[in-house]
């Protein structure tokens, strides 16, 4: 009669070695047998495989992640919870986190990207915070690949379909293209929330006897083994993993979100903990909540709301059905929570209780189907993996690439049409960036800016990383990623206050990849300390490789900044003809890994140029000081493509031209030396600014109302029609998508 | 119990942008013979009714009041008798 009897016996599990298919190693299985002092049954083997997958346990990356610097005076919650939290004064806090949905988005672009948004938003509101914005950091193969176009269409539509419907504005992010991502696109999403400090919730199951309440969507078989799926490499000939993708329902999530936040407001005294069901579903949410509180937990799986019939305990625990949450509520007070959710047409069911025996016990159909020590289950044996400096890095030439300047005009026009440089407005246009009516700086600026209603404050946010730099030098490249994210924030006037990361790498079992991960984390730390931006949350996505070819090391940096006075918000667009244009920071021959090297040679190579953390901080402080004193009409950071690209972008955004003269050789226009900004200053503030900036600023020329822009270098004068150049910049992506 | 299979499509005069996009994608994929593509909606509704006539009347009624917008959409349906679902 029991449904479980159809499953393998413990002996069959042992003999068939099915656990190897579930990504448990032989050593891990043997450790389980030894610790339990018996053979684990089918369900127990399944839950160990889920909890010990890299996606859930971080067993391979943890030795490195432990090094992250994550404490300063603002940090209210560092890594380890759904999201990190920073104090922003006035009793308020900002909550943010990034998450990757790379593998699901490759298999089913629309649903993979959509459920990525859904998952990261649940991380935010499970902390008791109202999500206020989302950002996306996307990496694709080159646009001339038809498969890439299919992925772009699906992933953009999926983000739009979910984010727009739930009513959280998608305000920023970045999109870049490189052939290394053709088989492993990256979909990293970051969400930002706002809360009163007093509303803070954590995912802990304290208090013996307290009730475990399941809230939200019913459980189906979707996404089973998603966690171990995300921890396996792809092979281009093997596509049978398709069943692993979940389907999202933004309407249901909005109800769950609104009701959860209402519950936090109205019943803070009886809610003990909240956790969303993400990777490894009910299994990881329940066992981690109990383990963090040092307690045990017993669940009765017959009570779990089910969408399909005849689901097994293994399936119920491992399902990654979306839009589900777990609450722990004080015993005897459950009905208030249940009633609140039922008023909003949502399931809320008591499925278990917190116990004092530190065991994780699952009951099903009148039997105990799992009984394992909870700390053992939630602490996978760590693995220290070997590292090796990648051979390619040892062989890099120390010479900087010298760009070909034989046709400057053609070079500029080609550069601004490169997918990585050209305007992404045609894609971002599909995202509702204005819902909630708090968006001060919309997509297209250096960072997005969201006003905090009822205060003078605003929060700036951005995502950034140039993985080409990391490919050449993961330590310096990671510093540059943090620095550039901070420059984006600073350009709006906001002070950078914290970081979330999305670490996308190849297989950690490859010592060269593991080295890249280690170096990237060290690099992030160096610059984060310099800028006082602790790393408060993050996500790791490993095994991003197809047929043995790994992606570039791509640690996406999500950063948030605080602007105390929103009226000082500054944008990239030139404002008035006659304003004086300055460059802040020093320019060197920085071409290895640059956009122009990639464009002119088809690849990148050579030792990466340097970044000086002291110079970086100096530039950022000067910009913040200038914005605070209202010296600037516009501020734009310099990044891929160098000065020429920033000049043109400020010109296009403001519908004004420029006349610039420099004593540089022409190729320096394309240099990507870090720590630089482009600013425009009203003429009456010129002398004050020059005094403030001293040797560190260079006057370049004037903003003009001419139809043409013009640059004179040491060797030549280049001019172009603003309208024509802007058209290329704006329409390049659309053309390439349609081609 | 009756099973109504209801097919909803745009009226012929209404632009079906999804159909058009699918058609051009098919042409790009070299299905040159494809002439038209119409995307519609398909519903399966099981309903208890005393006879075919009342099942027909009920299906028409709920389809016209909720499932379609008569400004732009039209529908047809098939009815068949199916076994009652038994609670397991």
């Amino acid at each position, binding site marked *: 009669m029991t449904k479980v009897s159809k499953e393998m016996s413990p002996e069959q599990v042992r003999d068939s070695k099915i656990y190897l298919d579930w990504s448990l190693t032989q050593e891990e299985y043997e450790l389980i047998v030894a610790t339990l002092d018996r053979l684990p049954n089918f369900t127990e083997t399944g839950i160990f495989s889920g909890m010990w997958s890299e996606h859930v346990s971080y067993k391979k990356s943890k030795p490195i992640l432990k090094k992250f610097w994550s404490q300063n005076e603002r940090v209210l919650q560092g890594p380890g919870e759904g999201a990190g939290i920073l104090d922003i004064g006035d009793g308020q806090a900002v909550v943010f986190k990034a998450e990757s949905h790379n593998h699901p988005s490759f298999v089913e672009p629309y649903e993979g990207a959509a459920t990525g948004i859904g998952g990261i938003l649940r991380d935010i509101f499970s902390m008791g915070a109202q999500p206020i914005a989302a950002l996306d950091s996307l990496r694709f193969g080159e646009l001339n690949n038809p498969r890439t176009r299919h992925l772009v269409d699906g992933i953009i539509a999926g983000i*739009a379909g979910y984010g727009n419907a739930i009513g959280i504005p998608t305000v920023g992010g970045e999109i870049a293209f490189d052939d290394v991502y053709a088989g492993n696109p990256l979909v990293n999403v970051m969400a930002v929330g706002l809360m009163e400090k007093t509303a803070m919730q954590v995912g802990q199951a304290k208090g013996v006897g307290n009730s475990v309440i399941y809230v939200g969507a019913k459980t189906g078989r979707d996404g089973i083994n998603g966690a171990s799926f995300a921890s396996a490499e792809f092979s281009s000939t093997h596509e049978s993993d398709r069943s692993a993708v979940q389907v999202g329902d933004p309407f249901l999530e909005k109800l769950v979100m609104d009701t959860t936040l209402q519950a936090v407001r109205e019943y803070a005294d009886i809610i003990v903990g909240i956790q969303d069901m993400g990777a490894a579903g009910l299994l990881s949410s329940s066992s981690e909540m109990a383990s963090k509180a040092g307690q045990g937990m017993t669940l009765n799986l017959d009570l779990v709301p089910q969408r399909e019939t005849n689901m097994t305990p293994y399936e119920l625990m491992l399902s990654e059905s979306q839009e589900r949450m777990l609450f722990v509520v004080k015993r005897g007070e459950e009905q208030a929570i249940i009633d609140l959710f039922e008023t*909003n047409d949502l399931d809320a069911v008591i499925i278990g209780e917190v116990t004092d025996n530190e065991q994780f016990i699952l009951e099903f159909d009148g039997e105990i189907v799992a009984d394992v020590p909870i700390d053992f289950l939630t602490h996978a044996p760590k693995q220290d993996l070997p590292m090796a400096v990648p051979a390619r890095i040892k062989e890099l030439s120390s010479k900087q690439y010298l760009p070909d300047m034989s046709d400057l005009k053609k070079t500029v026009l080609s550069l601004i049409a490169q997918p990585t440089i050209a305007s992404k407005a045609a894609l971002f246009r599909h995202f509702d960036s204005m819902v909630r009516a708090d968006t001060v700086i919309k997509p297209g600026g250096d960072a997005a800016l969201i006003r905090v209603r009822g205060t003078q404050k605003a929060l700036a946010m951005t995502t950034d990383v140039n993985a080409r730099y990391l490919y050449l030098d993961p330590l310096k490249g990671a510093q540059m990623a943090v620095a550039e994210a901070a420059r984006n924030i600073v350009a709006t006037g906001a002070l950078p206050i914290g970081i979330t990361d999305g670490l996308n790498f190849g297989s950690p079992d490859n010592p060269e990849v593991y080295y890249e991960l280690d170096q990237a984390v060290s690099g992030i730390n160096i610059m984060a300390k310099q800028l006082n931006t602790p790393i408060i949350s993050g996500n790791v996505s490993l095994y991003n490789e197809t047929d043995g070819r790994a992606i570039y090391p791509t640690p996406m940096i999500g950063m948030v900044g605080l602007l105390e006075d929103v009226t000082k918000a500054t944008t990239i667009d030139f404002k008035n003809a006659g304003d004086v244009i300055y460059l802040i920071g020093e320019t060197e021959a920085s071409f290895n890994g640059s956009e122009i090297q990639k464009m002119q040679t088809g690849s990148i190579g050579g030792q990466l140029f340097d970044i000086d953390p002291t110079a970086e901080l100096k530039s950022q402080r000067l910009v913040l000081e200038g914005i605070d004193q209202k010296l600037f009409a516009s501020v734009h950071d310099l990044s891929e493509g160098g000065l020429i690209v920033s000049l043109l972008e400020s010109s296009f955004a403001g519908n004004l031209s420029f006349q610039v003269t420099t004593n540089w050789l022409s190729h320096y226009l394309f240099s990507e030396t870090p720590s630089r900004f482009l600013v425009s200053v009203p003429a009456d503030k010129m002398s004050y600014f020059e005094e403030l900036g001293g040797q560190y600023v260079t006057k370049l020329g004037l903003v003009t109302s001419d139809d043409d822009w013009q640059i004179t270098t040491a060797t030549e004068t280049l001019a172009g029609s603003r309208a024509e150049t802007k058209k290329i910049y704006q329409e390049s992506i659309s053309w390439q998508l349609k081609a | 119990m009756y099973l109504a299979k209801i097919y909803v499509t745009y009226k012929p005069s209404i632009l079906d942008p999804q159909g058009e996009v699918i058609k051009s994608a098919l042409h790009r994929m070299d299905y040159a013979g494809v002439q038209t593509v119409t995307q519609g909606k398909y519903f399966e509704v099981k309903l208890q009714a005393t006879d075919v006539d009342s099942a027909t009347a009920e299906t028409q009624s709920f389809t016209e009041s909720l499932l379609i*917008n008569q400004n732009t959409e039209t529908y047809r349906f098939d009815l068949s008798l199916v076994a009652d679902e038994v609670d397991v």
Partner: protein
Amino acid sequence: MRAAVISFPGSNCDFDMLYALQDFGVDAQIISAKTNDLTNFDAIFLPGGFSYGDYLRTGAIARFSPIMSAVTQAANEGKIIVGICNGFQILTEAGLLPGQLLMNKNPGFICDEVLLTIANPDTAYTNTYNANEKILIPIAHGEGNYYADEATLDQLENNHQVVFRYADNPNGSARDIAGIMNEQGNVFGMMPHPERAVDPITGNIDGQGFFKSILSAILTKVTA
């Protein structure tokens, strides 16, 4: 003036509308679509969003919410009823405004700011704007392509029921229609979002005239 902003399950611009109304000193509150009494309100706003997920068709399920009988009653009593974006879609599904909003001509959601022309400046929604004045208002929709048969469109034109038109049609709407009202002029719907264009800090205040117009219309009616 007392205003109700109806919150349907899935509405997501309800608070944006509430804050915009409150910025103009209106005594506004959110009213759940599960209630059915609007007798205490002078004006009723159906906000943007994805009511009931916009599953089946935009607005199709919301129109059967309990509140909609009260909305219909208020409309019959001559009260001002305003539907923005999803609210417009609900009003057409409910038959309180003619026509229907179809999928954009080029499928896909569009978020942008577009120029609108004031097609009729003598309405409760436009009386502070000038005839043919152009205003920049945000749009955010995937199904904003206004459709009605030719006879209905002619009737809308002849009765001056077209209130706003797109200067550069973003979604394929018939005759560039962005907003219409009923024959009596008290029920109005538009796809663009004036409530997102009232606060100087967000960089656009072209929507202020919309709210000022409604306030002035109601004030005139109350004092008349």
